[in-house]
């Protein structure tokens, strides 16, 4: 593909219709906001949902997504491309979510209330949502990324920087724990 070399760096240059991850990374490094918009189009739905489950409400979830983009923009110069840009942005998002949770804890004496579904027609959905809250951090993360957001084990492994087998094993542990909690709560 041909980049419009010579244009001011922050002037939106054309992106190919389906830019590769490295093309996007290159354009992000050059401060091309179209590249960031493409990243947003590609990942924001899953980023928002994952953040929602981690921080507990939509407003904070949107804030963390915004924060993640800002961090990507500021740090993209040091992005070496060892993982893919999408992997990297999710890793940054997860860190932003934990920062946000720490902030919530600092600001409030009681834990922030979480937006939980209350659909009486879907007792399993409600039960699952509540049980998820009780999982340990790594199990919850892997369950959310694999089952809820549909990421692959290879992607999760890259985001969490663990072997793929570990991602599989954490998902198995998560489901076993959820099954145990759901069985106990129904008896």
């Amino acid at each position, binding site marked *: 593909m041909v980049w419009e070399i010579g244009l001011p760096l922050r002037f939106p240059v054309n992106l190919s219709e389906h830019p590769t991850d490295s093309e996007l990374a290159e354009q992000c490094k050059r401060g091309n906001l179209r590249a960031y918009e493409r990243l947003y189009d590609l990942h924001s739905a*899953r980023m928002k949902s994952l953040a929602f489950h981690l921080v507990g409400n939509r407003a904070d979830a949107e804030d963390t997504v915004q924060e993640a983009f800002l961090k990507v923009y500021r740090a993209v110069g040091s992005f070496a491309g060892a993982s893919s840009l999408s992997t990297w942005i999710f890793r940054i998002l997860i860190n932003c979510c934990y920062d946000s949770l720490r902030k919530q804890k600092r600001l409030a004496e009681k834990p922030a209330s979480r937006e939980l579904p209350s659909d009486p027609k879907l007792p399993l959905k409600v039960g699952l949502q509540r049980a998820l809250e009780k999982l340990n951090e790594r199990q919850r993360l892997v369950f959310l990324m694999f089952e809820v957001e549909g990421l692959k084990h290879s992607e999760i492994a890259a985001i969490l920087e663990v072997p793929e087998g570990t991602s599989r094993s954490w998902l198995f542990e998560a489901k076993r724990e959820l099954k145990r909690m759901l069985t106990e709560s129904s008896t």
Partner: protein
Amino acid sequence: MKFECGDLERALAVSELMPEAREHLKQCANCRREYRLWNEISSTGRQLHEDWDSPALWPNIRKMLEAEPKPKSAFVWWGEWKIWAVAAVVLIGVGLLLLPRLQQAVTTPEAKIAHTTGGAQDQDFLTEQALADVQRTEAAYRRSIDKLSQLAQPKLADRGSAVAANYKEKLLLLDSAIADTRSNLDHNRFNVRLQTELADLYREKQQTLQEILTRDQKN
């Protein structure tokens, strides 16, 4: 092996056991319920994806990024081809000067290995020396794991304990991941990513075994 109700979870982790599990499911209502719940956890999980409109989110992000200074590595001279052309000429010159020495170096054994595996030019591959170090570490891990496995054996053999069953399943999963990674490594023993993955799996297994033993001491 006779498949029992307690084997269902193991079958969910190790797909080779599923045919036997399916036979058992035909006759056991209890396990059928468990299996249905297992699948429902995944299908219901997908419904937990939270979707909502955020028309202001991208405009806000855009505004915020516009207010930022340029990304640090977006070199101002990136687009200036003249500098690149000069740099290329200098590099080619240096390359030509060093070429005879490099050719000489390629004939040494280390260089041969580095050459055939991508070696020094490619950090995704290990040199022979680094590989020997990695293999020594791996052997140390395996010795430690063997020792820990022996110590943990009595605790794991307790068929009545749910905790022991859970740990056994986890160890099975890890063993199967270790076997996969090792067989991949047989074809590509210089691959750094696979070696790192294998080391991580050994570390995880070692930690799991230590966890079993310390839990034993606490209880």
